[in-house]
């Protein structure tokens, strides 16, 4: 079975993406900042799909050069793989790059260069690995535009969130009035720049693998662990606990919901 690398496997989307690949018959190598962060998702997915199909490797800093090199090309000899049917030097045949900076820090300089570097770093590791056939980046609806309640408009493959890129770097005193908190503006800019980095890489390096970007909006659906619900996976829980105020602040008031969950039976 082909082996797929899923970065950020411990996040809400990362866990579902890994689940979907396992369901479709692929084996999965997941990454998280530390192995223990992925203990819960690994346990859930192993119970669901059986032993020997999923392993987790640590990638503590995703934006440095070569961060994903071992994850993409295979483990060093002292790594004990969980996937018995794969020798431990197996390179992956595909990469789903889900991991992203979700700090929502207001400081663009801490978020945007990091997001661009993380995309470039993993793509360069893929370029050096002949086994890679395809690369898919988890982008975001925010790479096209932020929420615009009551404003008619349309979004297609040529739409880019230039507004957030421009506003993200504005000094505090010069920030224009936005419905979004500045952390969301910076996040939107970071997703836009990270996806642009993907397409620039394709144009410049002409890689041997296919590239695509998936742009989800807000994702609803089941969580694998109610204790470790994260990101948009926690929104329903927040509502049930009466925390509307947080959603009103944090979340764009109208976005999209999404498909992925149809997977989980």
């Amino acid at each position: 079975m082909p082996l797929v690398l899923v970065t950020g496997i411990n996040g809400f989307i990362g866990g579902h993406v890994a689940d979907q690949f396992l369901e479709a018959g692929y084996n999965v190598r997941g990454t998280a900042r530390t192995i223990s962060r992925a203990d819960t998702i690994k346990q859930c997915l192993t119970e669901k799909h059986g032993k020997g199909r999923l392993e987790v490797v640590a990638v503590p800093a995703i934006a440095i050069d070569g961060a994903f090199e071992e994850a993409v090309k295979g483990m060093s000899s002292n790594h004990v793989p969980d996937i018995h049917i794969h020798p431990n030097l197996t390179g992956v045949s595909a990469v789903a790059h889900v991991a992203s900076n979700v700090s929502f820090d207001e400081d663009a300089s801490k978020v945007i260069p990091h997001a661009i570097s993380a995309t470039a770093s993993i793509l360069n590791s893929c370029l050096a690995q002949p086994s890679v056939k395809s690369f898919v980046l988890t982008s975001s609806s925010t790479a096209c535009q932020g929420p615009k309640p009551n404003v008619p408009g349309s979004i297609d493959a040529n739409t880019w969130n230039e507004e957030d890129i421009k506003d993200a770097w504005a000094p505090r005193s010069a920030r224009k009035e936005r419905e979004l908190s500045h952390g969301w503006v910076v996040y939107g800019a970071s997703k836009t720049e990270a996806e642009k980095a993907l397409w620039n890489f394709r144009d410049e390096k002409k890689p041997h693998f296919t590239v695509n970007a998936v742009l989800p909006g807000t994702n609803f659906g089941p969580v694998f662990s109610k204790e470790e619900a994260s990101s948009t996976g926690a929104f329903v829980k927040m509502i049930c606990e009466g925390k509307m105020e947080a959603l009103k602040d944090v979340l764009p008031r109208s976005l999209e919901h999404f498909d992925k969950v149809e997977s989980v039976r």
Partner: protein
Amino acid sequence: MHVAAVKFSDVADQRIFAQAKPYNWNEVLGILRELRPEQNFPAGIPDLGNDLTKVDNAGAEALLIRMGRPGFIGLRETLEQSLTSFLY
């Protein structure tokens, strides 16, 4: 969507809009109240706008169908699954 992008080698250079339809929090609250009538939910948010943006998601839905799925899942169904997963 991620699986489709890997599985089908002819899917390349695409921006895949994995976005089913617009929603807002009051719509979500309304559905949650219907799904769990015995539970108390917070009040809605006044003057909440609607997303009027048209997203070019036809290609994404076609991929779902190609994967053997019926297409995008509905908001009610996905919220029910979410509630169930939280044991609400």
